[in-house]
């Protein structure tokens, strides 16, 4: 049976060479994702693809039958950042994901239905209802929101819920660029070193444990957040889509595994094993369970679909 839960390819959080990006999305056109988020959400200095390039990609993916959403930058600091934001809001064709309230403001004033991104910090029903009134048709809860909190949220009629379900977690944003800092460079003269690290730079503890991932001004988890082994727990949550965050290797395999797991063609007790070789680092699922994000509790017998379980 085909599950009604959709798959979304989140915005590319890393800085890849232009050809790599184009080839990635060329492949993505044939993956079993329903939605593709496009655009630079991390750093305004990244320019391998310009606004027009993203729009061209959007057209190609839309022609391949994907719902395309343009994602806005999470940290908007300067007038030129705002200019880039207005261009996205005024694109006239594709839906937009707002990743801070400046974008939400512009989209709402323009009367456009939008996606409320994960950095908007929607933790309660009042704020969610408010966003619905402003025009949000979908929301992505904060990545730290546990299942228990999600199920306690009354969700406005017609509002779609997309949960961050795979990838290194975007945990923090800063004015400071930690990749430039690593190379003793200033941010304004960073030599675009992010491009040498297609999955970020691993930050280890002094006893060699991969703790975090440096990605320019963004800090990500060291581990890969994955709900693949907990898809049965989506029952009773009103989740309508899962966001899978791009990584440089095996992304098509990751998408396929999630689709098969959702549709039940891959037995629940085989999901974790099948996903394993596609993970660039150990998995974690703690946030979903209301624990430390880096925790992992692999169920000995994964919950089969479609039985609900408590988070």
């Amino acid at each position: 049976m085909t599950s009604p839960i959709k798959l979304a390819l989140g915005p590319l959080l890393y800085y890849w060479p232009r050809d790599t990006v184009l080839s990635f999305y060329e492949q993505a056109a044939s993956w079993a994702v329903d939605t593709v988020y496009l655009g630079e959400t991390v750093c305004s200095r990244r320019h391998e693809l310009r606004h027009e390039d993203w729009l061209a990609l959007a057209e190609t993916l839309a022609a391949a039958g994907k719902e395309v959403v343009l994602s806005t930058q999470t940290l908007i600091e300067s007038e030129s950042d705002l200019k880039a934001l207005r261009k996205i809001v005024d694109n006239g064709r594709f839906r937009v994901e707002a990743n801070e309230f400046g974008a939400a403001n512009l989209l709402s004033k323009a009367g456009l239905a939008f996606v409320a991104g994960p950095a908007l910090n929607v933790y309660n029903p009042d704020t969610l209802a408010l966003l619905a009134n402003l025009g949000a048709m979908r929301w992505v809860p904060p990545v730290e929101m546990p299942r228990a909190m999600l199920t306690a949220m009354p969700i406005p009629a017609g509002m779609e819920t997309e949960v961050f379900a795979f990838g290194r977690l975007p945990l923090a944003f800063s004015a400071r660029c930690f990749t430039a800092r690593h190379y003793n460079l200033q941010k304004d003269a960073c030599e675009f070193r992010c491009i040498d690290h297609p999955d970020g730079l691993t930050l280890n503890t002094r006893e060699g444990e991969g703790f975090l991932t440096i990605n320019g001004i963004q800090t990500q988890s060291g581990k890969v957040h994955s709900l693949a082994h907990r898809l049965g727990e989506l029952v009773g949550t009103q989740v309508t889509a899962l966001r899978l965050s791009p990584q440089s290797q095996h992304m098509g395999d990751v998408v396929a595994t999630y689709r098969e797991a959702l549709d039940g063609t891959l037995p629940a007790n085989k999901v974790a094993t099948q996903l394993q070789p596609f993970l660039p680092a150990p998995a974690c699922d703690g946030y979903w369970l209301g624990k430390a994000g880096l925790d992992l509790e692999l169920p000995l017998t994964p919950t089969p679909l479609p039985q609900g379980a408590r988070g």
Partner: protein
Amino acid sequence: MPKPLLELICPAGSLPALKAAVDHGADSVYLGLKDNTNARNFSGLNFDAKALAEGVRYAHAKNRKVLMALNTYPQPTTLKRWQQAVDTAATAGLDAIILADPGLMAYAMKTHPHLRLHLSVQGSATNYEAINFYHEHFGIQRAVVPRVLSLPQVENVVQHTPVEIELFGFGGLCVMVEGRCLLSSYACGDSPNTFGACSPGHAVRWQQTPTGMETRLNGVLIDRYADHEKAGYPTLCKGRFEVQGETYYALEEPTSLNTLEMLPEMHRIGIAAIKIEGRQRSPAYVAQVTQVWRAAIDAVKRNPATFKPQPAWLTQLDKVSEGSMHTLGAYYRPWK
């Protein structure tokens, strides 16, 4: 009424700290209740109803203002408690409340239309379109801007919003955008957004080992100190980590923010208020820092052109700073 200019906003983690701030020249003090409705949810800190009443009475008697931080994010099952805290603030005669959550702002505006609202730094508003959103929808009158903008960027914000802009001037330095940092919950389950504290004490362990003093957060090694080094609190962005074979302060050194030398510029661009960080610090800290900043702000207002931070001020501030090192943070662009 003219817009305020360089008001001094000082931290009050306790009644004695509040009195110290008022006695040493704060224009306003800010405080929080004894729970996770504010971002300094530390045991032994903050105000119950009795202390709050006394604090408001003390400050108002001397013509100073009291602001309440309700700047964490209410959750579905606990929303009521945040709303009650707003009611408490209104009843107790607070001069303003400092909020981050739009839903809570809507509640405050509807239930207490005369209560003045400030946008907390936890609201992560770094541009005027975002700040104006909170103004247009909830009537916020002041915004505290995250410690990520350079001063020219702040000036651009000031020029494009009717909202008063408040900046952090001194104290602990978040290297991440406030409200946009989940590092603490990733490591130990509790983050500022929902729990009201970063790297909370209950998750911290100090352990002397043959290789040095180790500080851990929920088991994660944040730093290790040789015998000659002074061990610091394991705030997780201020530990030493290894990246590509190099061990260093990969995110941020344990420094404090100090913007004293930028006061003339802040005066020129029309910053409404300067906030001193440190509700978790002692009344003695509050007294010292308030005294220095009062003198400095008075001096810059008398004559911004000739203002120079006095060596005595800097010595006094150095004594109370975290790590005894100072930075201008993002206000000074090359820091980024």
